[in-house]
């Protein structure tokens, strides 16, 4: 797409516009204070905190088992991966080796969560650029995953299925056949996604060359997940610091080099295939064994500092625990992917139009509770 610079002799005035906290494109209670000249965006100033619940402060009060359920409410679209992050951090601190079965199930459920999160993102992405039908197609497939989750974990969104030491209960007998059915179903649907939206000429015009992020900026802004990978920055935690059963599967890191909105879109579509392949490698050989190792009723972490990274659907989630040896953490910090990804919005949206901002924001895939914590 060619960039047009218009030298204007008109005297124009910049003005402010409030995008949010109630706006269809901000996907939650994010407020963006836009400085606009006509349709061209001059500055984006995010204003956060509309749903800040101070989860980090609440963690200092709660026991380690209780903290897990709070993480459901951060990035609610990848709640299982958030749970896993806390559990892994606690298990590492306790030097607790969880059974193989737990590792494999955690990985499968994590990848299912990623697919489900990307399904929702795909639907919403289409909706943000104006194709309303995609929303329902994305949700149809997400519904199948939600049903699988509901049958095994008992809840559809905030599962709290992981506990320090393993899983709260074993997988449901229907889990494996249902996941297999989903894989065959979904494999026919991704090409349909491509036919409906990816190849669409209007969609490509809307996204190509919009919101370009260079690799250096991506690293400097701490971009992670699909946002970083679209800029050619190889940042998949699953590759560099593999956790659970991810060291025993082979998959390709979805990488693009353009760094524009369309590249971020393509990375996520590619991740559909990669996640499916990870699940396929594991689903047939879930090892037998215990689903849980017994921990003490009151978990006390040894004095020290612990850091655990995982790759959620949005990027790198870091859990930083400072323990003084008591049953509550001294400090609990979440390094949330959305927070860093939001910080680069001003950098890449300036100079675009309002429509570009909406498309860009859709591919950043912001979940506001994740940013506000």
């Amino acid at each position, binding site marked *: 797409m060619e960039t047009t610079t218009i030298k204007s002799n008109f005297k124009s005035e910049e003005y402010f516009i409030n995008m949010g906290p109630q706006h269809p494109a901000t996907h939650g209670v994010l407020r963006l204070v836009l400085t606009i000249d006509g349709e061209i965006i001059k500055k984006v100033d995010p204003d956060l905190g509309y749903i800040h619940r101070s989860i980090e402060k609440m963690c200092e009060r709660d026991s380690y088992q209780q903290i897990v*359920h709070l993480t459901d409410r951060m990035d609610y679209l990848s709640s299982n991966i958030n749970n896993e992050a806390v559990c892994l951090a606690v298990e590492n601190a306790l030097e607790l080796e969880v059974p193989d079965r737990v590792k494999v199930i955690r990985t499968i459920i994590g990848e299912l969560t990623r697919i489900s999160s990307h399904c929702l993102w795909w639907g919403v992405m289409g909706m943000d650029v104006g194709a309303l039908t995609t929303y329902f197609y994305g949700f149809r497939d997400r519904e199948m995953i939600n049903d699988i989750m*509901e049958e095994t974990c008992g809840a559809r969104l*905030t599962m709290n299925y992981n506990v320090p030491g393993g899983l709260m209960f074993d997988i449901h007998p229907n889990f494996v056949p249902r996941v297999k059915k989903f894989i065959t179903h979904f494999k026919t649907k991704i090409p349909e996604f491509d036919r*409906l939206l990816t*190849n669409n000429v209007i969609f490509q015009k809307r996204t190509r060359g919009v919101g370009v992020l260079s690799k250096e900026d991506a690293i400097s802004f701490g971009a992670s997940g699909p946002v970083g990978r679209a800029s050619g920055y190889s940042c998949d935690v699953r590759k560099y610091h593999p956790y659970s059963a991810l060291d025993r599967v082979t998959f390709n890191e979805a990488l693009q080099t353009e760094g524009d909105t369309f590249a971020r879109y393509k990375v996520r579509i590619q991740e559909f295939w990669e996640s499916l392949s990870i699940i396929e490698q594991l689903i047939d050989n879930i090892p037998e064994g215990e689903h849980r190792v017994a921990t003490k009723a009151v978990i006390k972490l040894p004095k020290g500092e612990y850091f655990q990274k995982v790759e959620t659907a949005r990027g790198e989630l870091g859990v930083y625990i400072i323990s003084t040896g008591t049953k509550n953490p001294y400090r609990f910090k979440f390094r949330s992917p959305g927070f860093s990804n939001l910080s680069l919005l001003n950098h890449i949206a300036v100079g675009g139009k309002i429509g570009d901002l909406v498309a860009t924001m859709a591919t950043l895939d912001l979940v506001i509770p994740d940013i506000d914590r």
Partner: protein
Amino acid sequence: MGYFSNIYNGIKTLLTGMSVTGKYFLHSRKGAITQQYPDNRDTLKMFDRFRGEVIMPHDDNNEHRCTGCQKCEIACPNGTIEIIWDRGIDEVTGRKKKKIDQFIYHLSMCTMCGLCIDVCPTDAIEWGQNFENSVYDRTALTRVLNLPGSKLQPGVED
């Protein structure tokens, strides 16, 4: 010729997109994913593990399995469970023993994390599949789970 191939490719991709939605339009009867709640109430069955609310099952003799150990109360992150207990005289041994007076459950505060049920040593509480919890008054969401006059099932504590 780029100009005309642009037009041709553009129209082709648009028609491909229309064929996808068109296919679903023709199969709209079969493909509809709408659940016509509450019309389908009779056939709508939640999964066994579905977390709707915490219930305390009682057997035919109006006996439950809760010993009043309060582990659930401690495990709960939100203060959803309150156990009011009492010391009563055990009929068999004649000794004083802890027993529950009221097991109070504030559904409005519950986040369905499942820690109370996970921690319960006697399986006294479990998940109920009821999800129709809308009420006109918030106080209706505070429930006493043990039925009036209920007793501890014999043999649970052994």
